């Protein structure tokens, strides 16, 4: 006897394709349709929510500010051996002069100072002071050049020397009252070859004047920095005999004169500004934070710091974050514990009462759940104050003396009371939904077999309610460790959480990197718990309002 499929080959669909292919295609189409429905939201969440989180994680390691602000110094500093106990070479100090000069013109040196100040106290004022005084170092050369010949005083003659002929013509034709863009500066080819350092600094100067200050380059006298560069170029005695453009005579004259110029010893000059510039530690800090990415913020967030010998703990009196993390975890645990203690009996009662009464009482649980968080926090603030309702009642009852009113707010007690109240519904609801599924006959059976009340509860009922406790606890714990508003308002100084510190670093101290690193650690903690929650309860089973 032969099989039917053998006679007809594979089973066919109505349109003649094999049934298997046809079914596969239908399944694929179904999957695609489902994905197409989900895609808009997924993209929306990725852009509005996941990308910001990724940005925050990126910021916790990003550190381009040092190498952006001090490009020449950090390049040279890469070869410096900090362990040798010697300060960097004069070239490094010269590069530092150029970098700080440019940075102070662009007003970036204070930002860098505050950035490095997170790592080494005192650097901020060092940079501010240096920014004010680098100008003096350049003026030594500027004065000598200007004394030598009036040619060097004037912006027009400088432009004629440095700029290309085409650009000079365009700039002359440009009307600085008009809306047209200022023609961008182009350097003169011969000068680039003859005076490379001068050309480079002049280009930086021109770019700054034209694009950042948006002033007319023709009317701006060059920075003192350009004069220093000119001195450095001319002291090398370049062969300028072949050059016949504007200012060739003055260049020759200057080249002859520079040998007699008073010079600047940058190493000594910086020491003169602040002796900290000869402190190895300052240079080690700059060198350590030269790379574009750093683990410094994360080390900072766990009370450690980078040092030339690798990460090390900060001194005892500067350690705050580990303590704060421990306090956050401890207080969240206490809050979770009190929620279990208060939530368990209520959930039991709700699950065992007749439906009508239970629904009525459920409203008492759901009403706080639906009430604005700020309303509940302000209610606690009102109730727990020194002159608040709770203290007034206690004094009226004679339980505490009028002079001995309890400090219930602006400390840990305040945070724990208010947050237990706020998070209690999140414990009661999962507990209730689990307890609802435990048949009451089990307890009766245990008792009829001779168990005492306690044994029946502890050995029969409680184990069955553990999933509810687990779900509720993780939910409450996750919500508690990330709380910001309530600790901020009722926590004072001792009842605040790590999140308050994050907010402080974003809005007050502006140490965004550290805020991002603290946030990343907190996020890792929460995601680990989220994963556990998913394993135990399943995200699909999250219920809202019973």
């Amino acid at each position, binding site marked *: 006897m032969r099989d039917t499929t053998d006679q007809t080959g594979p089973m066919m669909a109505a349109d003649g394709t094999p049934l298997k292919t046809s079914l596969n295609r239908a399944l694929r189409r*179904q*999957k695609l*349709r*489902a994905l197409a*429905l*989900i895609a808009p*939201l997924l993209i*929306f*969440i*990725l852009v*509005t*929510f*996941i990308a*910001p989180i990724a*940005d*925050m994680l990126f910021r916790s390691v990003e550190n381009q500010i040092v190498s952006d602000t001090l490009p020449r110094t950090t390049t040279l500093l890469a070869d410096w051996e900090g362990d040798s106990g010697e300060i960097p070479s004069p070239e490094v100090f010269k590069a530092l002069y150029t970098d700080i000069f440019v940075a102070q013109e662009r007003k970036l040196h204070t930002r860098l100072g505050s950035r490095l100040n997170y790592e080494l106290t005192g650097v901020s004022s060092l940079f501010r002071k240096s920014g004010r005084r680098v100008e003096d170092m350049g003026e030594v050369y500027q004065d000598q050049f200007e004394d030598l010949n009036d040619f060097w005083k004037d912006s027009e003659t400088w432009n004629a020397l440095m700029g290309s002929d085409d650009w000079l013509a365009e700039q002359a034709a440009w009307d600085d009252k008009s809306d047209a863009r200022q023609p961008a500066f182009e350097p003169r080819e011969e000068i680039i070859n003859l005076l490379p350092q001068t050309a480079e600094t002049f280009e930086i100067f021109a770019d700054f004047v034209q694009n950042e200050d948006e002033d007319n380059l023709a009317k701006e006298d060059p920075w003192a920095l350009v004069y220093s560069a000119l001195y450095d170029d001319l002291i090398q005695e370049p062969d300028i005999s072949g050059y016949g453009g504007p200012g060739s005579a003055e260049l020759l004259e200057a080249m002859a004169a520079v040998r007699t110029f008073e010079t600047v010893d940058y190493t000594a000059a910086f020491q003169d500004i602040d002796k900290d510039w000869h402190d190895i530690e300052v240079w080690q800090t700059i060198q350590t934070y030269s790379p574009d990415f750093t683990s410094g913020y994360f080390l900072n967030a766990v009370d450690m710091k980078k040092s030339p010998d690798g990460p090390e703990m900060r001194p005892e009196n500067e350690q705050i974050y580990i303590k704060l993390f421990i306090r956050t975890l401890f207080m969240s645990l206490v809050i979770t514990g009190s929620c279990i203690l*208060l939530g368990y*009996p*209520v959930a039991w*009662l709700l699950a065992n009462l007749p439906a009508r009464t239970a629904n009525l*009482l459920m409203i008492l*649980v*759901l*009403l*706080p759940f*639906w*009430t*604005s*968080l*700020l*309303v509940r*926090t*302000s*209610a*606690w*603030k*009102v*109730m727990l*104050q020194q*002159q608040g309702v709770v203290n007034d009642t206690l004094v009226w*009852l004679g339980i505490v003396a009028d002079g001995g009113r309890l400090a219930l707010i602006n400390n840990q007690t305040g945070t724990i009371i208010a947050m237990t*109240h706020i998070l*209690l*519904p999140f414990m009661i609801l999962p507990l209730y939904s689990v307890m609802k599924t435990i048949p009451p006959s089990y307890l009766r059976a245990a008792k009829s077999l001779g168990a005492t009340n306690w044994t029946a509860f502890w050995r029969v009922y409680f184990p069955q309610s553990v999933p509810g406790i687990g779900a509720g606890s993780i939910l409450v714990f*996750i919500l508690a460790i990330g*709380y*910001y*508003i309530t600790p*901020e308002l009722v926590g004072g100084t001792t009842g605040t959480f790590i999140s308050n510190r*994050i*907010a402080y670093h974003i809005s007050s101290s502006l140490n965004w990197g550290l*805020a991002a690193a603290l*946030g990343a650690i*907190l996020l890792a903690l*929460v995601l680990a718990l*989220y994963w556990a929650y*998913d394993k135990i309860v399943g*995200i699909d089973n999250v219920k*809202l*309002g019973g």
Partner: protein
Amino acid sequence: MAALTPVSRTPISFYLPVVALAGAIAGLLVGTAQGSPLLGILGGAILMAGLAFLTTQIVKAETPSRWGMVVLLGGAGFLIGGLAAALIGAAFGAFFGWFTFWLFEGRYRAYVPPYLTPGQVLWHHSFRVICGAILVFLITPILVVMPLSFNAQDFFTFTPEMLRFDPAGYSLKHYEDFFTNLDWQGALANSVKIAPAATLLSVAFGTLAAIGLSQAHVPFRRAIMAILISPMIVPLIISAAGMYFFYSRIGLQGTYLGVVLAHAALGIPFVIITVTATLVGFDNSLTRAAANMGAGPVTTFFRVQMPLILPGVISGGLFAFITSFDEVVVVLFVGSAGQKTLPWQMFTGLREQISPTILAVATILVILSIALLTVVEMLRRRSERLRGMSPG
């Protein structure tokens, strides 16, 4: 609930000492308030035991006895401390009247199984008292705020005038301030602008995605679900920090659009959860039947699927609305002064210049949440009824 156990009167040796004990505790409270706890204990115990004996053994009629106790203790309170004390006294009277006869008639056993030992009955009732105390803890803060918002003074506690129920102690001035102060009105206007826009976005995207997610074959369902729920799980301060950094990069920081997008993202998990829960009981043969009768996918969606899942969509939308309407942390960072919302104004009010107008706003918000809670509950029941999940 029908009575489980036949009840009978209890002997005098049982209820008289119990009532005396309760009287002693009440007397302790009143006594300490008046400065002499010991006298309070003795007086309370003797007074209550005497009243209990009088009403149960001599008067023997329950209703007049109980009313008598209310009037007697209320009157005593009035003589000691005016109207407020009279109310407290009357409350004590009502409680003791009920308590005496509850014990005397043995009613305390009526609703517990007959086989319980006296210890178990005691535990049964103490347990309910404990639960009652916890429920009071849950609800008190909200109840305290409401009367305080009518305070005529700028205090955050009950003034003596309020306790005396003196009309001069109450006023609507904090409400007046809320409705006339430009700061508060501006904040309200911003909230009213931002929340509906955010809700609309969350509901539109969320409903589509929830329908997609409840199809039979969705690749990476678990991972997608985890991403979509994450705004609810990630601590708000982290979302706020990330959004602040990222939105400043792309120029959305300090704009309405930025705040609306941020709030929409935060509201989406709620829409997803409620709508997928509604779709769990959805009978897919309905859509097939519609298709069979010639309806296109769009018609099927709007005429068949949508009406059935509408309760879920609306309650998800309400959740999203309340999330946005109640949100402070993210708007604090993503918004600028121009987008100051109601919760933001409350937050600054609580942190800096603490003004009782906050309590008036709080009361209005509580009423709003009661209204929303009622709507959501009704929708949930309707949806369960529609899908035949519960008989009610």
